């Protein structure tokens, strides 16, 4: 195998491994919100450093490939896309970590089931998990159409986030003593919304890499 191809293959494996780790970070932190599982949150928190290590490794692999092999065409698009996917994945993991830290810092907070149902946070968690998995599928199989749904899912996640403020405000009015846990929930929802945005950025990079299409700042409907 050519040297460049070896480097690209190893980069691909590292990104896929990082992606799987980030998926588990997001799904565990989501589950921790819903089940108030502090141990699970602790696990997410512990693994954050592993994500950071992947980010550094992938950054340096990209830098070396560009410096030493001057990739062109699809190889160049791959390296550029991976470079950006890498930082998006790292940001996503940061949000998962943020959620886990919040849960650990406030072990006594327990969310009301009614609030969870009304804000649709469960749907939000399952949507961002789906978006991450679809992105990985598209990347692994080099099929950009696998990532096409991510844009509309992000729209749905944004909607849930937009509606949450009103729902939570109403709840606080009725239950002023639970304002603190409500603020915690809103913070978590904001983080999930940001995760959705990063998934959408990743989908754009997948289209750039596979189809050479620039979707950034374009309407995707």
């Amino acid at each position, binding site marked *: 195998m*050519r040297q*460049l*191809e070896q480097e690209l293959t190893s980069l691909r494996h590292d990104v896929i491994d990082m992606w799987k780790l980030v998926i588990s970070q997001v799904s565990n932190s989501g589950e921790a919100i819903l089940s108030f599982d502090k141990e699970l949150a602790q696990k997410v928190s512990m693994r954050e450093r592993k994500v950071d290590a992947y980010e550094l490794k992938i950054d340096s692999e990209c830098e070396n490939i560009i410096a030493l092999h*001057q*990739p*062109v*065409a*699809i*190889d*160049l*698009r791959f390296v550029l896309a991976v470079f950006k996917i890498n930082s998006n994945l790292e940001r996503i993991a940061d949000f998962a970590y943020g959620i886990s830290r919040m849960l650990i810092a406030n072990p006594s907070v327990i969310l009301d089931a009614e609030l969870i149902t009304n804000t649709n946070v469960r749907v939000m968690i399952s949507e961002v998990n789906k978006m991450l998995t679809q992105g990985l599928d598209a990347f692994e199989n080099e099929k950009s159409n696998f990532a096409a749904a991510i844009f509309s899912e992000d729209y749905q996640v944004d909607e849930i986030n937009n509606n949450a403020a009103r729902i939570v405000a109403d709840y606080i009015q009725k239950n002023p003593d639970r304002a603190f846990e409500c603020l915690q929930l809103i913070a978590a929802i904001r983080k999930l919304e940001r995760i959705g945005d990063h998934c959408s950025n990743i989908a754009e990079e997948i289209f750039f890499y596979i189809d*050479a299409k620039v979707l950034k700042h374009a309407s995707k409907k």
Partner: protein
Amino acid sequence: MNTDPSILSIENLSIAYDKDKLAVKNVSATIKKNAITAIMGPSGCGKTTLLRAINRMHELYPNISTEGKIKLYDENIYDMSTIKLRRKVGMVFQRPNPFPTLSIYENVIAGYKLNGINLKRSERDEIVETSLKNVALWEEVKNSLHKKGNFLSGGQQQRLCIARTLAFKPDVILLDEPTSALDPIATAKIEDLLVDLKQNYTIVLVTHNMTQAARISDNSMYMYLGELIEYDETTQIFTNPKHTSTQNYITGRFG
């Protein structure tokens, strides 16, 4: 493709060295004026034959047959005399080849001498100085103009050969892997020179060095087995080529 005016128009060109073996197969393309056009492709793809056909050097091979046209502006080069054509379309080769018995000065105006064109001393001086200045060699050699050309370094010799081509004030300069025998510093100088020269000349370059094509050319052709597979702006070829075969070649997955 950009819409700059074209200078050369290759129309259904086919060239065969043997009766049944086509080296160039029905190639059509227009070459933009004041631009650098690179021709790439694996060995034996016909790129050098195509380049040589532009000033009819390929006719030096016995039994060669050529079909189709190449127009320089509106004139078919196959209806022109080769002497007239080669004044308008100069050629620089892979290895620097200054005439070893001639001085630097004589090398630059060798074309006039070989063609029996008599110039006044002042005209000759003028041509030598301008041509050497155009290739950024004047300052380096102005005090040794009457020394033999082969004491120069490889890169200087190649610039001398380009000066010799420029002396005839051609419209088009053809270069066949002009830097493959040079070190990276001399290569960089020639590349900078070519980019400067395109202000006044049209340059067609055959190169095996893909990063060179990427660095300096405006448009690139990719040839394979005598066919012109893809011809587009260089940026397009190196970021998103249309043909798998081009992609395989430029990414090194060829064969």
